[in-house]
């Protein structure tokens, strides 16, 4: 792999990658399977040293990297957490990742952190608020970030926009990229009773830099986005249609609870790759 591929300006190939989690560190180093990229949770590398960096530095030398934050709380009514953002900036400068993403949600208020990806009310006020903060983050990091649509189990009475209109408005007003999580909007479509194809049609294709796929669980009251199962069949169908509409995009297999053997993740990634291959435009080089 050339050094140039590791500069932040170079795009990740539109193929499948996996979320790198610590149970797989050693096996990944030993096998170095063919994957378009690795994604890690930024906060897992906020420490200065130790085993997390020991493994990531070695793997990063061989794979394009995406940093995916879970704790910046972009949608919070609190002032932006400058300490957290400074740690993210340090990490971005250390690894020079191809992609940096955060969630289009809030996780904290009044200095209390829930570590849960909570939905925002879909209002014009929330669009302006979160878009302004995304711009602040991009200014501080000196680069584009992606924001990811989140799953949700409740809808606010205060919402005046559809979720898809909200996501498109935020991305447009912030001038950021979109990490489209197909599982998340499928889960929301089931939970809230909307048509996922209406959602997909509203997504700004030119802003979609990455796609996430994961598995959900079925609880009594709703689908729950646990990242603890294989990608569900209807989500694969929706993904295939999303790729047909948006074009091929780097696609991540995410698995965070009951983490399975590495081969299970690689098989899911291969499944995404087969769909991506069918939609690669003729003459467009896929790495």
């Amino acid at each position, binding site marked *: 792999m050339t050094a140039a591929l590791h500069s932040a300006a170079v795009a990740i190939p539109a193929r499948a990658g996996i979320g790198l989690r610590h149970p797989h560190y050693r096996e990944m180093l030993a096998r170095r399977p063919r994957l378009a990229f690795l994604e890690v949770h930024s*906060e*897992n590398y*906020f*420490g*200065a*040293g*130790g*085993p*997390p*960096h*020991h493994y990531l530095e070695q793997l990063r030398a061989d794979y394009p990297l995406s940093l995916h934050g*879970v*704790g*910046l*709380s972009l949608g*919070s*009514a609190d002032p932006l*957490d400058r300490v*957290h953002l400074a*740690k993210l900036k340090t990490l971005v400068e250390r690894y020079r990742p191809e992609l940096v993403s955060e969630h289009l949600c*809030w*996780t*904290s*208020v*009044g*200095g*209390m*952190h*829930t*570590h*849960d990806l*909570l939905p*925002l*009310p879909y209002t014009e*006020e*929330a669009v302006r*608020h979160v878009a302004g903060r995304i711009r602040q983050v991009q200014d501080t990091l000196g680069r584009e970030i992606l924001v990811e649509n989140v799953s949700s*189990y*409740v*809808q*606010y*009475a*205060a*919402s005046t926009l559809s979720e898809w209109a909200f996501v498109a408005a935020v991305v447009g007003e912030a001038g950021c990229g979109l990490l489209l999580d197909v599982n998340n909007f499928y889960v929301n479509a089931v*939970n809230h009773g909307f048509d996922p194809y209406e959602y997909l049609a509203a997504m700004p294709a030119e802003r979609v830099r990455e796609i996430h796929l994961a598995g959900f669980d079925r*609880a*009594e*009251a*709703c689908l*729950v986005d646990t990242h603890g199962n294989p990608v569900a069949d209807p989500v694969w169908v929706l993904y295939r249609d999303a790729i047909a509409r948006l074009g091929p995009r780097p696609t991540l297999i995410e698995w965070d609870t009951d983490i399975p053997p590495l081969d299970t993740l690689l098989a899911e990634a291969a499944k995404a790759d087969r769909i991506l291959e069918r939609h690669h435009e003729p003459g467009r080089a896929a790495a």
Partner: protein
Amino acid sequence: MSLAALQHKVVTGLHRGGPAPCQLFADSRCEARFAVYRASYLANLTEALRDVYPVLDRLLGPDCFTGAARAYIAGHPSASGDLHDYGAAFAEFLGHLGPARGYAYLPDVARLEWLAHEAFHAAEAEPLALRRLGEIPPARYDTLRFRLHPSVRLLASAYPVQRIWQVNQPDHAGDPQVDLDAGGVRLAVYREGLLIALLPLSPGTYRLAEGCAGGADFAAACGQALEAEPELDPGEALYTLIHHKLLVDMNNEEEEGGIS
């Protein structure tokens, strides 16, 4: 309602429990759905504590640990977006927890595990090589300020916490018995390669390391060390710290920025 007011109501509902703030939501099954968030909130913080305190989890058993964790969470909301920062006050909390009072060593086990957690994520640094010391004229030793490696933490306990920690490691194969009356221990907790290591130190060597951590020059640190252990050989104590790679470099007042 402002965004801030809405978010405060949601967080209060998650943290305090009680009825869900259903006036905020348009869902007919609001109670059951808000309960999914509440369960996830508690599980995330509980499992973060279990990750940092695996020995306590074994000592208490998973159910009792979960109970202690829930009681801790109720009084200690997370104050950082990085979940690795959560749980620093668990030792102090256990010291005041009624059911844990008969087990006075538990807070010190918690202290040890938190320090191991800090050591695990601490910065890398080149350890001080013994030969560097040889390059300094002995007459100048008194003014040297030795510095601890960033991963080194110090813990003194009235209980045999090193033994408790060792017999509760997943790969421990020997005798699991601990004699709680075996006496206390002074430990350096640090990262050795990719693993956490515990090194028992003599009272004087421990005080010498504390002196280095506090920025004392070698003369002052040795003075404190000899108070703690009159028969200490300071040269031997210094050698112990260097041999185990607990020191990184030294600042000499005549040489700005250290010599390493």
